[in-house]
């Protein structure tokens, strides 16, 4: 690990082939992200991990680190853009944190706190999305989907099942279940699947077990998301 780059004035070592995100995480520096997960190939879609490399914007989860790079991340300008992206995610779905089981363990909520988001700012879309309660063990609440595709990647790359997919284009993109009926009950999905463990928000939930962890004892009650840069706790 002989190479280094500069991140917000701090020298960050990296190994050949590491992305900026990987090197920063290894060095204990938090870069906000939602679609990135250290166990999966980067997707580069949420754009929350956008940084400036030598003055040009790029996704830090896909950009390989190179010697001598000057990377800016924790700046007012970039955090403002991240906040706007987060606000858009909130208004595009139906995110009612007060009655969401994932509250306190939700990466979207924790990121919003981290970025100082005080309101959704934009008009809510209030999309009409049904829940899929057909599966005996798992509930899918599409209202909260942020299209990070982590469940798609986990099901395809780890579970080998291809249960989920993203369908449609642009603003019409949506998460679908790969069954003729479109129902989760008609797939071989189980609670033990990796795809059941990776949702950063409250879409994929274990049934009949709500609010089991008291307020104050949830992941982001104990420490902000920025403190857990090296882990995926709370997912």
């Amino acid at each position, binding site marked *: 690990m002989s190479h280094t780059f500069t991140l917000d004035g701090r020298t960050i070592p990296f190994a050949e082939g590491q992305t900026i995100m990987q090197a920063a995480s290894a060095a204990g520096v938090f870069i906000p992200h939602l679609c990135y997960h250290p166990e999966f190939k980067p997707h580069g879609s949420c754009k929350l991990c956008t940084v400036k490399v030598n003055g040009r914007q790029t996704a830090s989860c896909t950009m390989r680190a190179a010697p001598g790079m000057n990377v800016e991340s924790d700046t007012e300008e970039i955090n403002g853009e991240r906040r706007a992206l987060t606000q858009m995610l909130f208004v595009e779905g139906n995110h009612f944190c007060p009655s969401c089981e994932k509250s306190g363990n939700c990466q979207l909520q924790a990121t919003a706190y981290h970025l100082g988001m005080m309101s959704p700012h934009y008009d809510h879309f209030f999309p009409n999305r049904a*829940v899929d309660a057909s599966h005996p063990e798992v509930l899918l609440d599409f209202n909260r989907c942020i299209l990070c595709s982590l469940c798609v990647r986990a099901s395809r790359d780890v579970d080998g099942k291809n249960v989920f997919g993203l369908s449609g284009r642009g603003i019409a993109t949506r998460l679908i279940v790969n069954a003729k009926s479109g129902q989760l009950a008609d797939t071989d999905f189980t609670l033990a699947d990796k795809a059941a463990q990776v949702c950063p928000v409250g879409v994929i939930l274990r049934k009949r077990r709500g*609010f089991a962890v008291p307020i104050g004892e949830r992941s982001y009650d104990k420490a902000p998301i920025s403190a857990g840069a090296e882990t995926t706790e709370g997912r």
Partner: protein
Amino acid sequence: MSYQLETAAHPESLRRVAIDPVSRVEGHGKVTILLDEQNKVHQVRLHIVEFRGFEKFIQGRPYWEVPVMVQRLCGICPVSHHLAAAKALDLIVGARKLTPAAEKLRRLMHYGQMLQSHALHFFHLCSPDLLFGFDSDVTRRNIVGVAMAHPETAKRGVLLRKFGQEVIRVTAGKRVHGTGAVPGGMNKSLTVAERDELLKDVYHVVQWSRDAVHLIQKVHTQDPGLYNSFGIFRSNFMSLVGHGGDLDFYHGTLRARDDNGKLIFDGVDYQQYDRYIEEEVRPWSYMKFPFFKSLGKENGWYKVGPLARVQNCDQISTPFAEHERREFVDYAGGSPLHAPLAYHWTRMIEMLHAAEVIKELLHDDDLLGDDLMVEGERRMEGVGVIEAPRGTLFHHYRVDENDLVTMANLIVSTTNNNQAMNEAIRHVARRYLHGREVTEGLLNHIEVAIRAFDPCLSCATHALGKMPLAVELVDAEGRLVHALSRS
């Protein structure tokens, strides 16, 4: 039991006075009064004009979200909705009997809420009326005025409420809108540190609650002419009654009495509530009018809340509150007291009981246990009933085989008191407004009558005595004749 003054014979020829809004928070309410040219009252209505729709939008949601979601109905006593929903859903998950730890923790949460809500209502919202007079100087008739004139009373009010809120926090996770109760039990018990922190203060809380009972008892008994007659109407009354006829806010069976105290029904399992109670819709209000089926719409309406509960039970299990209950019953002279202002007295007796129960529970090591959940045979339907600070609260749910809610019916405490509140303000309007020019002080009399019931809209009506009240006199052609604004 009449509906006099509900509907005027010829409203088109009358002037309309509207108190609007009576509320900004827990249900938007307004009062309309129709007067003729001599200011004689022909029609008085309390309208709850806000539509909230919880019963509809929780349909299609997973059942385990419900106790957390429905408590957002209310910011004053969310614990009531939280627990009533949890009780209904206990049955859905087959938890017919909770573990001792879970039930005691829920009781602690609920009695903490009863304490904080009653303290808030009495000290913050009503004591200015009771200590200074209904038409006293409006600039003084608020909690700040009370703090200036009676600093110790005001301070105790704040600290009593704070204690109740702390009880809720340690059991539910937050002072407002926590998550403690889950279908089948609780998600946390008390730590020794949390219990000991509450134990430090609970003895003051009991004593201050006793003093509060004595304060309102003195105020009431010193002016029986006013307190026994203001807004009075006779009615049936109903509440849950606990084991052996005890006053019980958390669980029991339904008991109803007529205006003379004679039993209408008793020992009713609330799973069957819809065989005994029906709701009538009237075109002028979003709030329904419940009544006992056996007596019909005309005669079957009733009141709930402290005045009903304290006179409906056979005894109170804690000694100080039982002593005060007997004092109250003796004062009433052997038959039920129907005076709305007696709600305040009974409310303070209940606050004292809540304080004593909290003290007893804090000495029970079951609260520290970790056996918190049970489940059994899954059912499709459940009813949860609880005595909320304002009265009997019904939550009824049906859940399908995929765990989604298909039906919800809620009868909230204030709804149960709908006809009763209308009767009280009609009496007050007839007694105080009839033939007089409307003034701020006279309007406050209407609000004093509403407040006695502690409806959910009470909070906003009375916040710091600066209710954003606007009254307009409009003639039959809709022209503004006279306007009065409190702001």
